[in-house]
Structure formats: structure tokens, C-alpha cells
């Protein structure tokens, strides 16, 4: 039974249709960095094939406003080759693990001129058809607002106001009711005190 299942799964894997054999590359969408800090650009891929020994990663850089891109990193044949002539010489370091399909690079000492789009292209022979993925790097002097912070803040403020209004409304009702109650108690109490006095005078 088990051998039958194993055979069936191997056969099915072999007949995998052409469409699903595209390699899918993941990088971030946008990365924010502070001037002078280091930034890690991650790149990983999904492939139906086992990770081959000829796996390659390559990073290219296109500055903001320019239409040309230059190649800044290439990993092939088990050896990483970093930029030694361009804008990233001595600032680029390979921190990925190709065996685990990770082709991340580290850029040190960010500068405003590093604003641009970094594209990662990975190939896992024979799985080579795929769309390179790009990550946009934005360099700031101070940390900008993250996605979703403003959304959450607006929702939180409005709901908080709602809860506050409800609480205040019930508090007012409670206070007013208590005041009315204490007033009626004091009136009732006065009547009780006068009662026995009157009786004494009468007697």
C-alpha cells in the first residue's frame, strides 16, 4: 500500500503541468532605512524543483529617476561576486544562504543616493522561467509612519470616543438618579424626625 502511494506521488510530481513550474521570487515591496544605517534586502524563491547546485542569484540596482539598471551582485557556482567598481563597492555583503533558497544582501552605511529600486532575479535550473521581484528602498532622516498605523489610529480614536460618550451618558444618568434618590431620602428622613417631636409636644 505504502509503495503504491509512493509510486503514485512520484508519478504525479513528474507530470506536473508546465504552468506551475514558474519560479516565484519574493522580496519585500518597500524598505525604509535611516541615513547611515545598514539595510538587509531579502530575496527568496519558491520552486517545485529541488535546489540545484547551479542556483544563481543576481541583484541589479536602478536609481530613482533613471531608466538604466546596473548589476551589483551575482552568485553562481557557489561563489558570491559583490560590486567592486560601482556605487556599492566595499558596502555590499552577501548574507544569504543559497542552500536554503535565501539570496539576501546587506548594504552598509546608507546614503540618500541609494534611493532606488533593487531587483532580485533567482534561477534554479531547470526551473528558470520567472518574474524578477523588485524592492524599493527609501532612505529617510527620521523614521516614517508605517503602513496601517494611521488606519488603526483613526479607527481607535473614533471607537474610543464612542465608548467615552456611552460611559459619560450612563454616568450622568446614574449620578442624576442618585441625586434624586438622596434628595428624596433626606426629605423622608426630616419628616420622620419631626414626627416623634410633634407627638412629644402633643403629649
Amino acid at each position: 500500500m505504502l509503495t503504491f502511494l509512493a509510486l503514485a506521488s512520484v508519478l504525479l510530481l513528474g507530470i506536473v503541468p508546465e504552468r506551475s513550474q514558474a519560479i516565484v521570487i519574493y522580496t519585500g515591496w518597500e524598505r525604509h532605512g535611516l541615513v547611515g544605517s545598514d539595510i538587509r534586502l531579502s530575496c527568496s524563491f519558491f520552486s517545485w524543483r529541488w535546489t540545484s547546485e547551479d542556483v544563481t542569484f543576481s541583484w541589479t540596482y536602478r536609481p530613482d529617476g533613471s531608466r538604466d539598471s546596473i548589476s551589483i551582485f551575482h552568485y553562481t557556482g557557489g561563489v558570491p561576486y559583490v560590486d567592486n567598481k560601482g556605487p556599492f563597492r566595499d558596502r555590499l555583503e552577501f548574507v544569504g544562504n543559497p542552500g536554503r533558497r535565501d539570496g539576501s544582501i546587506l548594504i552598509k552605511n546608507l546614503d540618500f543616493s541609494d534611493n532606488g529600486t533593487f531587483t532580485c532575479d533567482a534561477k534554479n535550473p531547470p526551473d528558470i522561467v520567472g518574474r524578477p521581484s523588485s524592492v524599493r528602498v527609501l532612505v529617510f532622516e527620521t523614521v516614517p509612519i508605517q503602513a496601517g498605523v494611521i488606519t488603526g489610529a483613526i479607527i481607535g480614536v473614533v471607537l474610543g470616543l464612542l465608548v467615552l460618550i456611552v460611559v459619560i451618558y450612563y454616568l450622568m444618568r446614574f449620578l442624576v438618579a442618585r441625586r434624586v434618590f438622596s434628595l428624596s431620602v433626606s426629605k423622608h428622613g426630616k419628616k420622620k424626625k419631626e414626627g416623634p417631636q410633634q407627638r412629644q409636644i402633643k403629649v
Partner: protein
Amino acid sequence: MLLLLLGIIFLHVAALVLLFVSTIVSVWVSGDAGSSDLWRNCTTDSLGPDCNPASTGEWIQAVQAVMILSIIFSCLSLVLFFCQLFTLQKGGRFFLTGTFQILASLFVMSGTIIYTVMSPEWVNGNYSFGYSYILAWVAFPLALVSGLIYVILRKRE
């Protein structure tokens, strides 16, 4: 009487469903090269759709927040309607329900207005507005009318 009740509930639920669909599915602009939403931009090429999260601008986040708030307020107003249906005195008006529903419609209105005004900045020139955008604009008068009906309605036996 029962018919009136059913009609009001149907109107309210219709507005709520429109709000949900327009916020979640959210094909706010679309063109032949892809579509763009409140939450992500998708472009279609030979390998299939490629989606990326929307930009982190302040205004798109404001539109997201306002649409979610309108859904929350509309749901709250539906719950309040059922509460008030059983606890209100005879002859009373559904003020609270109507207020929440009108607030929800105002939120939808401001969300769609912000999106319309800021859309030249966000989307490609040759994209046109998609069906979720139209659904949001339809949900606004529906919710407004529903809220006004609640404010005018009096509870009979």
C-alpha cells in the same frame, strides 16, 4: 406592519452587504493592465496577476479606516435596532439606530470623496473606476435613507 419591518431590515442588510463587498473585494479602479484597490495593486502580465500592497500614504489609510468604521457602525446600528425593537416604549423613535446608520453613511461618503479626489495621484491615467467604487457610492444613499427612516419611524404595538 410585518411587511414594513421586513422592508426596513432588508434595506439595512442590503446597505451592509454593499459596504462589505466594496471594502473587501474592492476593485476600485481597473484597466486592461490590472486593477488597484484600497489594499493592494495588481498588474496582470503573461505569468499571471502580480499583486503588491498599496502605498503607505496617509490618505489611502484614511480611506481604509473610514470604510471599516462605516461597516462597524452599520453593524452596530443593526444590533441596536433589534435591541430597541424589544425594549422601546410604544410611540418611541429609533433615534440611536438612526444616528448610527446616518453616521455610517457619512463615513462612506467621506471615504469615497477622499478616494475620488486623491485618485489622480494614485492610479494610472488609463484606469477607470471599477465596480466596488460604484457599490460604495450606491451604499451611501441606501444607508442614509435607511437611517432617516429609523429616525422618522415610531414604534407601534
